[in-house]
């Protein structure tokens, strides 16, 4: 049994088949990338795993949990964290508060104890803060700790989103275009971070990305998609030289 197993999954929006009988599996400890032209259904796969959409057929199993039987908010409690393509941070809160929301799945206190801020709540807050500080250290966000998201530049927001996902202490990290809109240096930073996330923290990474440099640099396996279906699956080199992939990106050879 694989770590994350997506099997024969299909999703339709009206007449459009967004995901077409797609199967793939992610092994524990690897970096798995999904590539494909715009509208191939890459982000839709993420939204299926996050349970924002219900597939009409198929199954998605993560670490022994049948995700299709769980609520969207439960997916995070199993240890799946994600970022969003267009950045979905809590805009009116500070970076620190954003990361602390990431600790929500480890909440061991209830409404009444929080109302009186009992010593157990205090202890939990200190622990959460300690964990969050390690993430801040790891991603070099010290300078932005107290800043509100609404005033931060795009590149920093992108990193904060990764930080917030890491703050949940996940087993599987879903990165939706981590390098889109980043400068060359920021993309290089992101590449080393993804490498460190896998090696130091031992977190499995599943990412959607267009930057082939980043993809071939960090990923162990790549899945190429077009029109919701699987085109090719293999190492970055194999996928890049696959005739079907070249055709999907560049069209027919005349």
């Amino acid at each position, binding site marked *: 049994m694989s770590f994350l197993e997506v099997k024969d999954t299909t999703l339709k929006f009206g007449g459009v088949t967004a995901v077409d009988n797609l199967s793939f599996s992610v092994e524990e400890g690897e970096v798995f990338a999904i590539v494909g032209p715009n509208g191939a259904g890459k982000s839709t796969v993420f939204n299926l795993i996050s349970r924002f959409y219900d597939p009409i057929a198929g199954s998605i199993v993560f670490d022994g949990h049948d995700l299709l039987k769980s609520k969207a908010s439960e997916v995070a409690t199993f240890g799946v964290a994600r970022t969003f393509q267009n950045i979905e941070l809590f805009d009116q809160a500070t970076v620190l508060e954003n990361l602390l929301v990431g600790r929500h799945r480890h909440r061991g206190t209830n409404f009444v104890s929080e109302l009186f801020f009992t010593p157990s709540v205090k202890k939990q807050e200190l622990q959460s803060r300690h964990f969050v500080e390690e993430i801040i250290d790891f991603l070099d966000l010290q300078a932005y700790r107290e800043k509100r998201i609404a005033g931060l530049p795009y590149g920093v927001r992108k990193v904060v989103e990764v930080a*917030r996902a890491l703050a949940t202490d996940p087993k599987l990290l879903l990165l939706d275009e981590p390098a889109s809109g980043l400068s060359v240096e920021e993309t290089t930073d992101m590449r080393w971070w993804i490498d460190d996330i896998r090696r130091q923290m031992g977190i499995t990474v599943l990412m959607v990305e267009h930057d082939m440099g980043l993809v071939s640099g960090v990923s162990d396996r790549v899945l190429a998609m077009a029109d919701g279906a699987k085109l090719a699956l293999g190492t970055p080199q194999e996928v890049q030289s696959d005739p079907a992939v070249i055709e999907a990106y560049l069209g027919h050879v005349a």
Partner: protein
Amino acid sequence: MRIVFKTDYMQDIRPWKDTYQLMLYMILLAVVIAAPMLIDDFYLGELTNVLIWALAGMGLMVLTGHTGQASLGHAAFLAFGCYANIIMMEQGVPFMVAFPLAGLLTGLVGVIIAIPALRLHGIYLAIATLAMSILTDDIIVLTETWTGGVSGKYAPPVNVFGFDIDRWGTPKEFYYLVLGVVVIVTLGYINLMRAPLGRSFIAVRDSEVSAQAMGVDIARTKAMSFGLSCAVTGLAGALMGLFAGAFNNETFSVIISIELLMMIVIGGLGSIHGAFLGAIVIGFLPQFLSISKEWVGALFGGSSVAIPGLEFGVFGFILILFILFEPMGIYGRWLKIRTFIELFPFYRKDMFKRQKSYLKTERLR
């Protein structure tokens, strides 16, 4: 320029930033405790009124300011809290039991209403809650046997720790009763907002999709917020009933709901301070208007004139000014002034400018 040097996580976890700030709040507390010795009974009554409005404002602030769910129906919960408290007292339940129970019951009713209502978003939720507010009037008339209908009810004096308290006979004691409730609720509110539940409220307000992706159960969090909001509003309603002395189906009209919402917008959405600042505006505006009317009347040699609807007109005008020029309310303006002073001379004009982001991940609805 004042810089807080942080060396300990507790500095961020405790409610005050540094001793200076703690001192300010202690002085404020001392002033409000000493208030009955400083001002006469008329102004003490006005201050009591402001505190009750601030309590109701905090109730709505949890829901609208922190969880981002607009409600135009909170007068209904004021009414429920008020009638629940008085009816229980008439059945012989002592005030010390009836009062918290009235809050709890209002909270429960809130949760029950929240489950269907919070499937609605934004303007639709506002319309649904508005309908609830309008219905309240009819429900009070229809349930005349309990509520007294159009002829209304009178609030009996209440007994707290052996002291008989009533608004007219013992205004000082009544003030302390209200102050006690307000302080306790405020402390609870502060505690919640620095704990996971408070943060999940903010998460739901700012982005439901990513709150969900962080493991926040949206429906439960919203219901929790609605329940808490209604419970606090119910307590405010009970005090409002006692303060008014007599009330009927028209006391908690839809106007009160709208006033309450306008109050927290003027005060500043998303801050506890905002509820208090808004209440000060709402509470003192009628007095201010009547005093200035007399003054204007004297200026022209005549007696004061009655202008129908003046209060609402001025109130609406103030609201429009705030929405146009300071959407963050009085507290938002204060934050800007404070930042200006603290950073002098490094304040930038656009420091608080809101960035519009047009690209949001599909909202899935």
